């Protein structure tokens, strides 16, 4: 049996992952034509490359259909309940940095912290008759964060893209999204709350706890971790 390594199938995340493994003597490459999702690995025996959408890697790891995978810690925490019981973080990879933050319109000069957000949400609900809307695709992470922080009278509205535009379009009053530089938030007249950092994410090599780890797979893992210097 081979050890399956799931890697994002396109874009910068794929290239950076290939670079990261390459720098450690494990060569990953795509095979076939450009549209075919197939890959090859040189440097460690018994390892198979599986190219997947970054968003599907958490689920595949949790189900044990891949042994190892590369994805952002934000996706792991959002998509897997009790993630620690399902996967093990082997190594942060030093790229794909992104912060999940809560941001409000710059014009809300009275809202600097979550405490302010909570008070503003109470007033908003009393005035408008519905709960203050926060647009996000990270429902679980945001809900848990706001519950722990004791923020009430808000609701999450789903936004799978262009989340920063939802406030201007009046489909949400605030946003919770991933940012690396904050430029898009600023360009859309939004400001991050001073205590609004929910999670600092980066690309991470993960190990499935559920996958079939027989003697052969374990031997491959030992060889790989040695080669990677982990």
């Amino acid at each position, binding site marked *: 049996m081979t050890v399956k390594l799931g890697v994002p199938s396109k874009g910068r995340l794929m290239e950076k992952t290939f670079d990261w493994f390459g720098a450690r003597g494990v060569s990953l490459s795509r095979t076939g034509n450009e549209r075919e999702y197939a890959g090859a690995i040189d440097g460690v025996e018994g390892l198979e490359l599986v190219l997947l959408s970054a968003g599907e890697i958490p689920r595949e790891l949790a189900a044990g259909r891949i042994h190892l995978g590369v994805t952002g810690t934000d996706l792991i925490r959002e998509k897997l*309940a*009790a993630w620690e019981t399902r996967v093990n973080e082997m190594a942060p990879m030093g790229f794909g940095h992104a912060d999940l933050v809560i941001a409000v*319109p*710059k*014009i*809300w*000069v*009275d809202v*600097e*912290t979550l*405490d*302010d957000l*909570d*008070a*503003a949400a*109470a*007033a*908003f609900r009393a*005035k*408008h008759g*519905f*709960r*203050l809307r926060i647009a996000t695709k990270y*429902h*679980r992470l945001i*809900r*848990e964060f*706001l*519950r722990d*922080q*004791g*923020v*009430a*009278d*808000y*609701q*999450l509205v789903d936004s799978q893209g262009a989340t920063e535009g939802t*406030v*201007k379009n*009046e489909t*949400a*009053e605030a946003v919770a999204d991933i940012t690396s530089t904050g430029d898009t938030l600023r360009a*859309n*007249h939004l400001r991050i709350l*001073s205590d609004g950092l929910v999670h600092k994410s980066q690309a991470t090599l993960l190990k499935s706890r559920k996958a079939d780890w027989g003697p052969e797979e374990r031997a491959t893992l030992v060889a790989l971790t040695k080669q990677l210097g982990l």
Partner: protein
Amino acid sequence: MTDKAKTRAQARAYQDVFEAAGAVPFEADILQSADTLLDLYGEDIRARAYVTSDPLRGEQMLRPDFTVPVVQGHMAEGATPARYTYSGQVFRRQEENEARASEYQQVGFEIFEAKDPHTSDAEVFALFQQTLAPLGLRASTGDIGILLAAVDGLTTTDRRKAALKRHIWRPRRFRTLLDRFAGRTAQPAHRKALITSGDPFADTGPEIGLRSRAEVEARIAILKEDATVAPIPENEVQILDELLSLREKSPMVLENLRDIAVDLPSIGPAVENMALRLDAMAQRGVNVDDLDFEAAYGRTTMEYYDGFVFGFVSDKRPDLPTVASGGRYDALTAVLGQGVGVPAVGGVIRPGVVVDLLEENQ
């Protein structure tokens, strides 16, 4: 895995008891309006209830409990006073603990009665205690109404009281607010800067979104006004802390509360209501001398109960969920009735947990 047939038989037996106590059987739909539940409980309900949808009715939830449909049913056609019993599956989404059931049976008993709430409280509790007596459970009780009355009695503005009462069910945020209102922690620096700023809107860009600049200005005005409010006196905060830490047999707590009421008279009526309730319980055969009372009991449930609260657990099987629980939820009926509420109290038993306990005993 609990035997479903046994659970249903146990549920039937409890429903017979509740019907004998004058309750009318109530049938509820499994699919409930997500809007109503979300409006009532907030976003947290999504973590606890299964959401489903169709293109016609939009989002629906698998009923996480019977309270909302029973209240709606009563408001729509019931005449007060009324007693209801129901039995059926409830569905709870589990995100953290796979061992917890995501679907289980509940049997409930609810009283809608405007007169003498302490009598209804006692009736529900005594009925549950007698019904569950063979199981050797330990009962816990509390009263959120006393906490709300205590906040009402603090020497501070109505706005600060409202902010505290809004967070009664979130102990951590409640504590943060209380410490700030009492001057135990300083006003955040950013807030000081905001209320002393000559032009807070300098360099803030365009006005975007539904929350208008006027709303922002209104909140700044409130913050300015709040900055001039005297802190809640230290002795009152100490009294509140003392009250929140009360945990004793009921008669002892009652004595303590009466002492506290000398310094915090606002809790007087709620404390006397508790005294009346204990009397009514005693009349119904409850040994109140041995009944535990915990002032903070029920604070971490959803914002739902606002008076008497109770629960029954097995000390022999701490791994099992609470066997039965309930309380008074007058405010919830007022929200569902758009301001017109009916005083209501009730509780549920989990017959599946009872079956587990009985099998253990054999």
